[in-house]
């Protein structure tokens, strides 16, 4: 009997272990507390650098750009740095974070930004794909109309049981740690596309002079002192001003590889012509950037094509001088918004994105969604 009980205990343990390996700890996110999940994720080993690993081991020079594949941040010269060397308590669990206060800001009128003060340090962070999707979204009639079309297409292909719980375009977070404490920092935060929420983490003694948000559809900043001014030019504003952000490509980029004849599907001449056009755009952007902020864009940028954190300033030499991670939960944020703004789970019934989409589709179908069905059953 005792042997049987032992066997059952051993079997159950093995099953749980296999389940964790197969499903990954994230499958238990609704069951286990975040701390336990974090510990389990750590056990996997993929996020934990080995003792002799270098930050560069976690930076992939890929066909689509420079990709952070481990716990690294972008640092001066756009070189990789282990996150825990600059930030304490870092976390990427932001999907349920709800800010305490949201203030709407608007893009500037015109194309001229306030220049940095003499003696201040210009910090320039760029963000690509972060994957840190927040519970905040903002959208307009164009997004709703596109979603209604998606809803109609799904209804027509699957039928009335077609699931539709889409959200509007969410903000993706990107972290910026400021470890520069010798001078005020003039922060230029540049995004390529989508809605971006820049989350700041300051080392003790760090001061922010001004924040410039460039690019993206909408942009905001979290954990910034309310007295610090913020100026914004979004993608449409940059285009209206004739400004086209551009940077040199990494050596492993598809276009660079094509230019040296290593991509059989792409012509070498075509790639060279594209690179030449890109070079012209890079130079033009550099000139505008230098005229606006006093530094060259390609030399000052700190940020990979895929990653979650840029560090502005020197690597702290002691734990006490590291930037402490500030969550977006309970933070004060300032952001531009589109026509509608939504916090997931905090919207009145029937007022969320999916409900609006259904309501519009229903209204267009004269109240009868069944009329959307098409296609004969041959």
């Amino acid at each position, binding site marked *: 009997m005792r042997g049987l009980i032992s*066997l059952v205990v051993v079997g159950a343990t093995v099953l749980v272990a296999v389940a964790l390996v197969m499903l990954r700890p994230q499958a238990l996110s609704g069951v286990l507390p975040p701390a336990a999940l974090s510990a389990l994720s750590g056990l996997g080993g993929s996020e934990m650098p080995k003792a002799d690993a270098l930050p560069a081991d976690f930076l992939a020079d890929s066909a689509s750009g420079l990709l952070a594949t481990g716990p690294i941040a972008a640092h001066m010269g756009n070189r990789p740095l282990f996150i825990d060397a600059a930030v304490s308590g870092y976390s990427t669990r932001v999907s349920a974070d709800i800010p305490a206060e949201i203030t709407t800001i608007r893009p500037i009128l015109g194309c001229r930004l306030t220049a940095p003060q003499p003696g201040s340090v210009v910090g320039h962070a760029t963000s690509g794909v972060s994957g840190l999707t927040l519970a905040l979204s903002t959208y307009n*009639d164009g997004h709703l*109309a596109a979603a*209604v079309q998606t809803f109609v297409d799904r209804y027509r292909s699957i039928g009335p049981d077609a699931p539709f719980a889409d959200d509007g375009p969410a903000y993706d977070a990107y972290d910026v740690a400021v470890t520069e404490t010798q001078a005020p920092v003039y922060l230029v935060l540049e995004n390529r596309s989508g809605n971006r929420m820049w989350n700041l983490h300051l080392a003790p003694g760090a001061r922010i002079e001004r924040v410039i948000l460039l690019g993206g559809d909408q942009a905001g900043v979290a954990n910034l002192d309310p007295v610090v001014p913020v100026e914004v030019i979004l993608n449409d504003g940059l285009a209206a001003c004739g400004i086209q952000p551009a940077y040199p490509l990494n050596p492993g980029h598809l276009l660079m590889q094509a230019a040296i004849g290593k991509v059989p599907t792409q012509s070498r001449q075509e790639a060279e012509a594209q690179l030449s056009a890109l070079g012209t755009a890079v130079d033009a952007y550099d000139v505008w950037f230098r005229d606006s902020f006093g530094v060259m864009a390609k030399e000052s940028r700190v940020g990979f094509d895929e990653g979650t954190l840029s560090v502005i300033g020197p690597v702290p030499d002691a734990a006490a001088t590291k930037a402490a991670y500030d969550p977006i939960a309970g933070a004060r944020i300032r952001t531009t918004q589109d026509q509608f703004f939504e916090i997931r789970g905090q919207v009145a019934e029937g007022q969320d994105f999916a409900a609006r989409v259904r309501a519009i*589709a229903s209204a*267009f*179908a004269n109240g009868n969604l069944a009329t959307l069905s098409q296609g*004969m059953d*041959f």
Partner: protein
Amino acid sequence: MLRVLIGSGLLLMAVGFGAAGWQYWTNLPAMPADQDLAADAGDVSPGQTGWLVSPTGGLIAAEDMRGYLAQDRLIEGRIATVIHTAPLTALLAEDDSLPTEPYLQVFADIRAPRMAEGLCAALLGTIAQDCAMHSARVVPGSVDPAGGTARFRIDLAYRLKPEEEALPNLGERVFQTETLGIGGAAETTADETPVAESAEVPAEVAAVDATAADAVTAVIAAALEACAAGDDRQACRIMSLSVDWAPGNPTAGQARIGWLSSLPEGIFPAPSLDPAPADPQG
């Protein structure tokens, strides 16, 4: 202890193989595609041999064969496609108004079935025994907010009226098709299945039609005229058609017709491969 260990092992194996078997079972396709095709092709018309041959002796594609022979039901391949321009206000009901510009495209797409009105009547009044709307969509990107118009694509499935004369013996005929370009190239040629025996034969049609339904009637008339024009075209049928119409513009269309004709000279039907009847005395 050993028995328990062996028993547990067997149990685990049963669970593992059982799960794998279940996955295999659930992933099996409901019916093999060939089986489905064979069932469909064989179900053409009672009394027919159910196959057609081209003048070069090649077999006719199953889809074409169904499009020509299977007139007892609506089928996927026999479609009349009508692309026409209409004012967006035609989509409105009483006391209705158009939505703001970002929504015009999806609004037109949802209300597109209204644009099919009268089109089936044009088919039923000429060649069709039965007609039903298969789909009605707005052509992507065709909404013109300034002009207040959009282009709509309506697909109608139809089956032909029964003919007075029964089909001749299919084994003694060859099947041919022809694609007629009527009044200019229609925009739907890409959807058509290419067939080796098809040919482009331009035909003239009345320059401007008052409505999309009139344009359908005109294209059908031109196709029927082409059917009648051939000397050796028996049981000529309209297998599909497409019409492109805009108010004030000449109608453009295509019609695909199929017919039976005599075997080419020097070709004879093969004798039956059935076994010879048994000799009553032998």
